[in-house]
């Protein structure tokens, strides 16, 4: 088996459009949630979202590229350009040994609804020839392959809220099993649209709070659902020897990945969290977890009433008597739920927690739920140097993904 390291990071998020801005705001607990500006939400029950701010696609794309891409693709191109530039791998890998696994949970819904409105108003002749390529959820991976001349495996993952984590896990295995030297991995989402918000809202999945600082409340007794976010996150995964031989930045090592399925309900997690727990247990087994070592867990922690309890129970099952000593935080308290990008953005949080020796907080957690009884790092970041980090991502459809990461050792 090959070792797999991370050599580049990139992010576009509700709390910053560079990795360092994102990380600073996550650590400081500067919440990215605010009133919805993408459409008039007056008639909606939901009025808050975590929108990406001040994003300039022309910083990353030619003008006609911008015109022919959905926002989810623009975010993907931007976060990936950041990661590729940091990694510097481009001239060192043959196109055949280089792949892309980059997903989106929903794809280009902004485009979909806009073109559908044209169809209804003016007939089929007015639907853009770009409707399909802008809408389909594999197009971010396809366009990334074109931009970076990648001739290896190129595909998306579509596992709802676990999309970004699935992409990293699958890309990790491609390198681990010797099938590629470099993989671009991550996820992107841009679904803060009227119809998507209405749909999530009618599922009772979203918080109805009008207070941005009391809306995304993972593990808090007042939690009532997640806050729709958006953005993109990219990791460059690279075979260890390949990275070392070219003097690449070594930002962390992926040491474990497991995906399981609840096979229980289309949207509700299994109440006992058993399959999520199995993903965690297998992931830390691969990473050779030693009882007593410093572990940080970046929870899926969306702030839904059932999901947070199930995840907490699973952590107890996996870590047993050690669970109380595992700091657990939810980045979604700060970023909202970046949906298909969340798993990748939260993997970045784990890597930077190990780099800086600090674990970020779960903000807004002032009324603990007795059924959620772990150390959730409430309100403020904490100095803590993990030797093992775990990132959980669970998605509608029962997808459970857990990724284990460690600092790179020689």
């Amino acid at each position: 088996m090959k070792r797999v390291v991370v050599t580049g990071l990139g992010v576009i998020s509700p709390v910053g459009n560079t990795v360092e801005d994102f990380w600073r705001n996550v650590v400081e607990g500067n919440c990215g949630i605010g009133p919805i500006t993408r459409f008039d939400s007056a008639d909606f029950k939901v009025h808050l979202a975590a929108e990406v701010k001040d994003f300039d696609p022309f910083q990353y794309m030619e003008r006609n590229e911008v015109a022919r891409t959905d926002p989810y693709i623009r975010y993907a191109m931007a976060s990936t350009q950041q990661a590729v530039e940091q990694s510097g791998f481009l001239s060192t890998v043959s196109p055949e040994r280089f792949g892309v696994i980059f997903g989106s949970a929903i794809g280009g819904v902004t485009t979909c609804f806009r073109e559908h409105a044209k169809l209804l108003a003016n007939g089929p002749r007015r639907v853009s020839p770009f409707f399909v390529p802008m809408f389909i959820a594999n197009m971010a991976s396809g366009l990334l392959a074109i931009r970076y001349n990648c001739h290896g495996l190129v595909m998306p993952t579509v596992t709802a809220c676990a999309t970004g984590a699935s992409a990293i896990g699958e890309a990790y295995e491609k390198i681990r099993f010797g099938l590629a030297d470099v993989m671009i991995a991550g996820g992107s989402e841009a679904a803060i649209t009227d119809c998507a918000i209405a749909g999530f809202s009618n599922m009772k999945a979203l918080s109805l709070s009008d207070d941005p600082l009391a809306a995304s409340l993972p593990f808090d007794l007042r939690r009532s659902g997640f806050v729709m976010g958006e953005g993109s996150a990219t990791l460059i995964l690279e075979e260890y020897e390949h990275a070392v031989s070219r003097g690449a930045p070594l930002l962390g090592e992926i040491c474990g990945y497991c995906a399981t399925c609840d096979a229980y309900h289309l949207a509700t997690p299994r109440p006992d969290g058993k399959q999520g727990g199995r993903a965690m247990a297998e992931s830390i087994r691969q990473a050779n977890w030693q009882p007593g070592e410093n572990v940080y867990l970046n929870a899926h922690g969306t702030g839904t009433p059932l999901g947070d309890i199930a995840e907490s129970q699973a952590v107890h099952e996996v870590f047993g008597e050690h669970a109380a000593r595992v700091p657990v935080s939810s980045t979604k308290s700060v970023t909202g739920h970046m949906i298909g990008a969340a798993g990748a953005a939260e993997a970045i949080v784990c890597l930077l927690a190990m780099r800086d020796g600090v674990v970020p907080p779960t903000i807004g957690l002032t009324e603990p739920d007795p059924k959620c009884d772990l150390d959730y790092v409430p309100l403020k970041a904490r100095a803590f140097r993990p030797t093992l980090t775990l990132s959980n991502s669970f998605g509608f459809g029962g997808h459970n993904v857990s990724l284990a990461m460690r600092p790179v050792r020689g």
Partner: protein
Amino acid sequence: MATVYSLLTEGLAERLCCSPSEFTPQTTFASLGLDSLDLGELLIILENRLGFEIESDRKIGTIQDLVDIIENIRKKRGIRIPDVDDNKNADDKNAGGSAG
């Protein structure tokens, strides 16, 4: 004065976020990095402005090719474009022409 050429280049400029003065009749769509899908999108923009469908089997390489196609459709079907023809008539009148 609006012409088919100016309507076309304005539509193109809108699509590419640039100025119509960057184009000439001989500018090829390929040189602007535009493919057949972009051309399809441009035709929709133009059809919205002109009010008729632009269907043709002819190869469209340059801006002038597309202008010629539009003018041919107009001629064949006797379609007037208010912005273009009204201005033309007004100009002809001002020049002492026989129109009207």
